[in-house]
């Protein structure tokens, strides 16, 4: 549609142009004819005015009349009048009615003006425009007459045949040009339409388009080039689309992984703070937020120094910063008395490195090592205590032996006492070493049970005999409670004896002088139950959950003043467990303790085999 409009507009402009051109031609023609007339008029009137007056009289006048008559007919000369000094016509070459139609003022001006004059006027009655040329005739320096000539200047018609011809030719050429331009443009646009359709096809459904459908040269070449570009763009677009899908997938995976990493960081029992190179916090996990008692938005993007106000850690970080950053991880132990009283943390610093940027931040981790420290302290305490327990009887044996060897003991009775002491201390040492070995074997899982039939009353008596001496020293009464019949056990008698003696011995150890202990043996269903009930110091709520822990000893001074390694009840618990039994404890501070060991009977145990 646009092309058609352009064509119509072009035609209109052509027509207007032709009109303007015709108008200009018309004016030019008029101007030219007017000038021709002026030259002709001036020439003729001057020529006639050269004649003396006598030539317009008599016979001489005929020659002039004859000459002028040719002009009158051919060149539009309407009239030629020669008048004498008085204005009387000497020669009048014109119709009478024409002369009568000349305005008087025109005649008067021509008769009285000296020199050549040209006047234009409308002839009365006819409406014709007449150009009158007048020139005086001089003879002997005197004006003797006037020559007047009137020329008709016919109006040039706008629509003359010639002009119409010219306009028609031009219109034809204009129309031909418009048609040619229209078809030329249409022809030129055809490939563009095709390309447009191709583009649509490419954009809509990727229909295959033949790139060779255009002729070589001109627009076709351009179009071809364009189309190749479009195909390249299409390929690029498809690749980008594929990459976009790929990137979207990767983004999803990365987001998921990031979420997982954050979840992982939040789930671990470590405090983690991640900072950027300016020491602003970029990430912090839940554990650390709990430790600092802060919310995430109070911490993220804040300087580390504002959040972690801890002189020791700050000094550590500064010290590490001053050292070579890539020298690996390092750590210190720190506590937070106000935030986590009694807990110890291992604060470690490591550096985050980018692929090219070098160090891009820090990772500070806080590992709660309270239990490790506690275990370490317990282990240290245990080693110290065990060393003491081992070396004390050794020292006794060594020094007593030295006294005997140096013959510093003369008295025979005293010598016997010394030998007895050496024997007792040797037994004590042996027992302690056995306990340690048993604990060690149980821990290693290499303790072999030598099981056999064990009569429960024999076991009961053996245990009682072992502690009776110590009980008597403190004037402690041990009350025996035994059933009528004595069921047997299938057990390692020596180990079971160690287990029961540990409990019975503890009862004696931690019951004050003149105290009371009940040692009971009962049957219940398929089980034999050993019970030890004392009215001793009892066990505090704090200590109760730990009494079976290895190396654990109460901090109660009434306990610490007694010798002990913290191994007895741990060993007892393990021995009972190895025999398929259970151990229970009920205790109240200052009221006493009640230990109950449940062991399967021999029949039950054998029945299970």
């Amino acid at each position: 549609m646009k092309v058609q409009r352009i064509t119509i507009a072009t035609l209109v402009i052509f027509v207007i142009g032709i009109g303007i051109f015709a108008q200009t031609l018309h004016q030019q023609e008029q101007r030219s004819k007017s000038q021709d007339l002026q030259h002709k008029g001036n020439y003729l009137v001057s020529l006639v005015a050269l004649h003396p007056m006598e030539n317009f009289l008599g016979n001489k006048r005929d020659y002039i009349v004859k000459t002028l008559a040719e002009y009158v007919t051919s060149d539009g000369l309407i009239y030629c009048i020669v008048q004498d000094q008085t204005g009387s016509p000497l020669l009048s070459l014109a119709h009478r009615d024409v002369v009568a139609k000349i305005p008087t003022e025109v005649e008067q001006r021509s008769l009285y003006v000296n020199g050549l004059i040209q006047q234009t006027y409308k002839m009365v009655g006819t409406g014709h425009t007449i150009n009158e040329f007048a020139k005086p005739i001089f003879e002997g320096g005197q004006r003797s007459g006037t020559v007047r000539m009137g020329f008709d200047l016919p109006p040039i018609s706008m629509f003359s045949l010639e002009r119409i011809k010219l306009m028609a030719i031009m219109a034809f050429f204009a129309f031909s040009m418009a048609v040619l331009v229209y078809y030329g443009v249409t022809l030129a646009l055809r490939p563009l339409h095709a390309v447009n359709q191709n583009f649509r096809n490419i954009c809509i459904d990727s229909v295959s388009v033949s790139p060779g459908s255009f002729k070589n040269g001109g627009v076709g070449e351009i179009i071809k080039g364009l189309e190749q570009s479009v195909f390249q763009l299409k390929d690029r677009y498809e690749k980008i689309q594929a990459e976009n899908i790929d990137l979207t997938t990767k983004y999803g995976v990365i987001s998921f992984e990031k979420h997982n990493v954050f979840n992982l960081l939040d789930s671990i029992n470590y405090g983690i703070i991640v900072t950027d190179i300016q020491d602003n916090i970029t990430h912090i996990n839940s554990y650390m937020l709990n430790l600092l008692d802060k919310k995430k938005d109070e911490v993220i993007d804040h300087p580390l120094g504002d959040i972690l106000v801890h002189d020791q850690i700050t000094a550590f970080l500064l010290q590490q910063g001053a050292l070579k950053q890539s020298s690996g991880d390092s750590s210190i132990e720190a506590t937070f008395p106000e935030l986590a009283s009694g807990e110890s943390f291992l604060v470690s610093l490591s550096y985050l490195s980018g692929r090219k940027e070098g160090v891009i931040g820090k990772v500070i981790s806080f590992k709660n090592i309270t239990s490790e420290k506690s275990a370490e302290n317990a282990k240290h305490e245990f080693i110290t205590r065990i060393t003491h327990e081992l070396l004390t009887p050794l020292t006794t044996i060594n020094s007593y032996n030295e006294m005997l060897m140096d013959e510093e003991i003369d008295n025979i009775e005293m010598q016997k006492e010394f030998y007895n002491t050496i024997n007792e201390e040797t037994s004590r040492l042996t027992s302690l070493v056995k306990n340690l070995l048993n604990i060690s074997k149980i821990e290693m899982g290499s303790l072999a049970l030598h099981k056999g039939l064990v009569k429960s009353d024999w076991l009961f008596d053996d245990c009682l005999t072992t502690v009776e001496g110590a009980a008597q020293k403190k004037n402690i009464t041990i009350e025996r409670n035994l059933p009528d019949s004595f069921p047997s056990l299938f057990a390692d008698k020596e180990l079971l004896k160690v287990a029961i003696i540990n409990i019975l011995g503890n009862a004696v150890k931690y019951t004050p002088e003149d105290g009371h202990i009940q040692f009971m043996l009962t049957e219940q269903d398929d089980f034999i139950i050993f019970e030890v009930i004392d009215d001793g110091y009892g066990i505090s709520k704090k200590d109760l959950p730990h009494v079976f822990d290895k190396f654990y000893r109460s901090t109660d001074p009434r306990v610490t003043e007694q010798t002990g390694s913290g191994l007895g009840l741990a060993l007892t618990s393990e021995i009972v467990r190895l025999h398929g039994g259970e151990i229970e404890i009920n205790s109240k501070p200052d009221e006493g303790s009640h230990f109950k060991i449940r062991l399967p009977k021999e029949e039950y145990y054998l029945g299970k085999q």
Partner: protein
Amino acid sequence: MENNKRVLVIDDEPHIRRVLELKFKNQGYQVITATNGEEGLDLIKSQQPDVVITDIMMPKLDGRALCERANELKKKRPFLTIVMTCRISPTEQDWIGQLTDTVFVEKPFSLQTILKCVDQYFGNQG
């Protein structure tokens, strides 16, 4: 052989107390004994012994605390302290350095070793 030097033995282990008491009595020393640190400190103040032989691991007041109290008392009246210890950990070295007239003897020790320490102390005193 009898001299007027007084030895205080502090240990919760009766056999150790007994053997040290005998050894020093045989050497002519006056010997007094205590079964825990608290009782020992009281005796240091009241009996003013010239030598204090003490265990490190004891009930009520342990050997470490006893040594620190004794160190204060030595500013007024000097005396020798012999500490019977099992082992000296690296962290205890600094603490030991702060004590005056104190000798550490590791268990199991020879009685002669302790006796030499005492003799050397009194020998140096002239």
